[in-house]
């Protein structure tokens, strides 16, 4: 299946190609979750995989998040390499006991005896008018938990390449896929493959201010940088990619060059990942700053349904531009 336009691939297809490649390369890999098989995945990521790999390895589950996430943990410690799909981050709260109390703790609590090589994929984020129980960006909560690795592919290359590296990781990795990205299309190199899940990258170099973001807001930050360029403000855009553990080095090196930082995070501001990044900049690069760190986060409300209110609740390009202007002074 091809993306929109000749030679183009969508984020969804890149993800599917990654799952398919992993299934072909390692017989221990299997996909399990609600409607991943016959339905083809609620966001059509796994469409066609049931026909190719059969119901043992493309495993539809009942609506029992705690049981199938926990079963993924059990299968991982049993020697498999499960990919568990949870429809949305809001639903993942039904499995939080398993993720927090088992996946994240077993290795340490057992004195190193049982590692949990599990990958959990889930959709996060707003922008589709699906209101207050399907739209939140709760990945920041998960970044609080030692023992987990949290990644957020924001590009086709990362959608294609992060899964394999996550599966090779001996510890639990949570992949957050922003719902607005699935239809993003572009040209993916034919040899695109595994990518690291350790480092942040600079998506656009600049000298005047650093915009730090990840996942669904990367595009907005890049648009803001483009707009700022028109005002002779050269913004550098960093895609965090891995939200835990954070790549402080890339962030601090940039802030030391630009002396200004704006963090763009679709999570709520209080107790957010943006707060964590900001605190780290204070701790590690305070004397390099020429202005206070700015944050552009979601309004602290349950996500409303009407488009105009949803848009008002989310970080938008004008707010990012304004925050950057503020920082530059």
């Amino acid at each position: 299946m091809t993306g929109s336009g000749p030679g183009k691939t969508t984020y969804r297809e890149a993800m599917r190609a990654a799952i398919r490649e992993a299934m072909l390369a390692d017989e221990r890999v299997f996909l399990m979750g609600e409607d991943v098989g016959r339905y083809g995945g609620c966001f059509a990521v796994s469409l066609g995989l049931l026909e190719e790999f059969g119901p043992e390895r493309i495993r539809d589950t009942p609506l029992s998040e705690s049981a199938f996430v926990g079963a993924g943990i059990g299968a991982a410690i049993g020697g498999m390499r499960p990919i568990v799909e949870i429809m949305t981050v809001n639903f993942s709260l039904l499995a939080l006991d398993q993720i927090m109390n088992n996946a994240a703790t077993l290795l340490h609590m057992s004195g190193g005896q049982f590692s949990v090589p599990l990958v959990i994929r889930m959709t996060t984020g707003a922008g589709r008018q699906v209101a207050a129980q399907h739209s939140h960006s709760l990945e920041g909560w998960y970044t609080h938990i030692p023992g987990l690795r949290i990644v957020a592919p924001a590009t086709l290359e990362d959608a294609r390449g992060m899964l394999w590296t996550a599966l090779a990781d001996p510890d639990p990795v949570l992949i957050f896929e922003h719902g607005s990205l699935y239809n993003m299309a572009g040209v993916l190199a034919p040899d695109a493959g595994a990518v690291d899940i350790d480092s942040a990258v600079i998506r656009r170099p600049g000298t005047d201010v650093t915009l730090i973001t990840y996942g669904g807001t990367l595009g907005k930050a890049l648009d803001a940088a483009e707009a700022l360029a028109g005002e002779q403000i050269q913004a550098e855009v960093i895609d965090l990619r891995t939200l835990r553990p954070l790549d402080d080095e890339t962030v601090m090196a940039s802030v030391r060059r630009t002396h200004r930082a704006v963090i763009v995070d679709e999570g709520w501001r209080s107790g957010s990942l943006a707060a964590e990044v900001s605190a780290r900049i204070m701790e590690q690069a305070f004397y390099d700053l020429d202005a206070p760190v700015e944050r552009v986060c979601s309004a602290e409300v349950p996500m409303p349904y009407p488009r105009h209110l949803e848009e008002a609740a989310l970080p938008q390009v004008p707010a990012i531009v304004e925050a950057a202007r503020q920082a530059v002074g």
Partner: protein
Amino acid sequence: MSPRRRPAAPAARQAASPPAAARQPVMHNEPGGSAAHRTDLLRQMLLIRRFEEKCVELYSAGEIHGFVHLYIGEEAVAVGVNQALTPDDAIVSTYREHGHALARGIPMTAVMAEMYGRTTGCSGGRGGSMHLFDAQTRFYGGNAIVGGGLPLAVGIALTDRMRGRSRVTACFFGDGAVAEGEFHECLNLATLWQLPVLFCCENNLYAMGTALARAQAQTDLAVRAASYGMPAWAVDGMDVLAVEQAARHAADAVRGGGGPHFLELRTYRFRAHSMYDPDRYRDKAEVEEWKRRDPIDALAARMREAGELAGDTLAAIDADLTGELTDAIDKARGGPLEPVSDLTRFVYSPRQP
């Protein structure tokens, strides 16, 4: 007062309609049915009893800490079920798991060292009383979230199923877990996927301080399990031979591809929920009544009656166990504490350079 307000008296809690095979008495000519075997069961139960009694002493003396949940009174369950398991099988357990660990064959020295938080403990001292782990014997914890172990057991069994292995995952949990959503999700999933799980519900009639009838609309737990489509029956959990027989029957069926099975093991804890618990919610008379059905006394009496237990055998076993325990405590006390510099070790797996 409605009859459901209080737990039924022990006499009324005999096994309720077990399948035909489980109803037959253990025959003396069966491999598992020799006098030597019964003496071994007695020894194993006594080992757990003495270990737990020692834990009370050590806890009171401030030598061991944390939450300590004792298995005294429930020994027949762990020992009986373990007879049905092979070294290839797996166990997922709860926070009241000293008995499961010892019956599984984790060395007493390693379990005791874990109580002391020493690196020689079976979890390297990291887990303590509630989190015993042992890869060697496929003992997957020690889970202190009620119901939290069931999904793990389902996943371990799923692996065996996908790999075509003929192994059983025995999953222990209490009556309290039946109120958790994870219980229902997991029983459904295990039957749906025909997974080789032996669900062992230790019904000791209390979820901490909440009596079964105060928490469960349907107190017949085997009936609830059966509603998910798996064979399920209640067993007298104070009778180690009955437990062994039921567990063998169930484990053989699970191993043979018969899908998950459920045993409701009706038992009772003679001590409080944990060392913190003042035990205000049970009648002393009720506890005393259950103590008259002590599983160790019951088996010993039965064996004496059959002429299988010479007058001084039990005392000799006890003396041996006391020696073993003293040795385990000495070793635990002398065991090394993990250096603080290792605090964050194993938060993540060691990385290849």
